[in-house]
């Protein structure tokens, strides 16, 4: 996980994804949102396998080894770091009030909340938001483009893939200069995130006729909802 290999690897992945998206006309199975379904299903299976053998067991071990308050502290710590660029994205989306609240959260949680371990800002009424560059582009009117399943990163659209590149570039953790610290923190964040998602897993297993399309359609609906901050125009007509 050296920085250079990491980034080259990521560029390659992106190149493949964009190429695959470009070839959209060729390999289609009917869903207009998912022109490269064959490629996506393969990537989905790859990610699923990686999750089964590596990430999920790590998350389960992590959950078993650490008491809940400690895990909450870890989630809060990374959440606090993320709040910085959530604020930037809210600014870019023309929502200065929300941005101000996000920056206020960082200040409060980094100090009173002891380096972000405690989310005192939420207690004080500053709600946590969820923003990223993909949403900012969406807000600016950029269409989402084809659905793409990226290796390691999972479901995205072409637009959100470009957003992801910026998310990674601006991620304070990924940009730490001390390689060992950076890698440990990145691994911890992946495992902690995954542990938070363990209950959702079981619900999806229970619900899905076809896990691939359930995850895809859920992702697309959720992203649309996020771009509209929870109030998308309702679209019930068939």
């Amino acid at each position, binding site marked *: 996980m050296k920085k250079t290999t990491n980034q080259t690897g990521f560029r390659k992945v992106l190149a493949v994804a964009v190429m695959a998206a470009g070839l959209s006309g060729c390999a289609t199975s009917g869903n207009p949102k998912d022109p490269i379904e064959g490629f996506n299903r393969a990537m989905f299976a790859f990610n699923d396998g990686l999750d089964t053998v590596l990430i999920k067991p790590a998350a389960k071990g992590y959950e078993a080894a650490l008491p809940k308050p400690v895990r909450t502290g870890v989630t809060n710590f990374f959440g606090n770091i993320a709040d910085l660029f959530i604020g930037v994205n809210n600014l870019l989306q023309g929502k200065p009030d929300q941005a101000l609240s996000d920056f206020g959260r960082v200040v409060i949680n980094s100090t009173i909340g002891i380096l972000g371990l405690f989310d005192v800002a939420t207690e004080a009424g500053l709600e946590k938001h969820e923003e990223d560059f993909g949403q900012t582009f969406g807000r600016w009117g950029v269409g989402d483009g084809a659905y793409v399943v990226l290796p390691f990163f999972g479901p995205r659209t072409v637009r959100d893939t470009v957003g992801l590149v910026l998310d990674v570039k601006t991620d304070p953790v990924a940009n730490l200069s001390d390689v060992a610290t950076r890698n440990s923190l990145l691994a911890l964040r992946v495992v902690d995130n995954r542990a938070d998602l363990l209950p959702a897993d*079981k619900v999806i297993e229970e619900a899905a006729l076809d896990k691939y399309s359930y995850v895809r359609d859920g992702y697309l*609906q959720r992203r649309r*909802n996020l771009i509209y901050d929870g109030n998308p125009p309702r679209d019930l007509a068939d």
Partner: protein
Amino acid sequence: MKYLLGLLTALLFSLPAAANEMAPDVLVKTVTNEVLDTVRQDKEIRNGNSKKVLDLVETKILPHFNFYRMTQLALGRESRQASPEQMKVLVDEFRTLLVRTYSKALTEYRDQEIVFKPFKMAANETDVRVRTEVKQTGGKPVSIDYYLEKGNNGWKVYDIEVAGASLVTNYRSTFAQEIQKGGVDGLIKSLQEKNKTGEAVAAKAK
């Protein structure tokens, strides 16, 4: 199956009068709190008795859901292809799947706090959204929005959105794909097969 159909019909038409008159937000709040209290306190449920959760969902929650409308929404334009008989079976099977999913979610997230968002509606409105949130330590709260429609039997939930994704319309493209492959009967068969696995067995054995 026949028994379930009978049960469904009975549930759809035999609502307690009190619930009929409840405002939609009060209805959602009352039912959610009642069910969560039971799920949190019941020892057998805490020890993993999933049949008991399913029973709870059947008796407390199902009467307030409009499964026919949900099935129609999940099918989208494909619903025109289904005969009334096929539609009946689809509603039944889809109902089992949704109940099972809902029960699972209740069990997995029972210890989280639910916040009911402020609700306003005009007196003559017949289609509303009631917003709730599941608080998550360390993360943005997850929204759960209930869409309700007022009919002859009071307010009924016809869609639920979790974190912005509808538990109902999320099936639309899968259903369309199944119908394209094997017709409406193909979809029915897939649903039946899915429902034969796991916890649905407990629901059907009832």
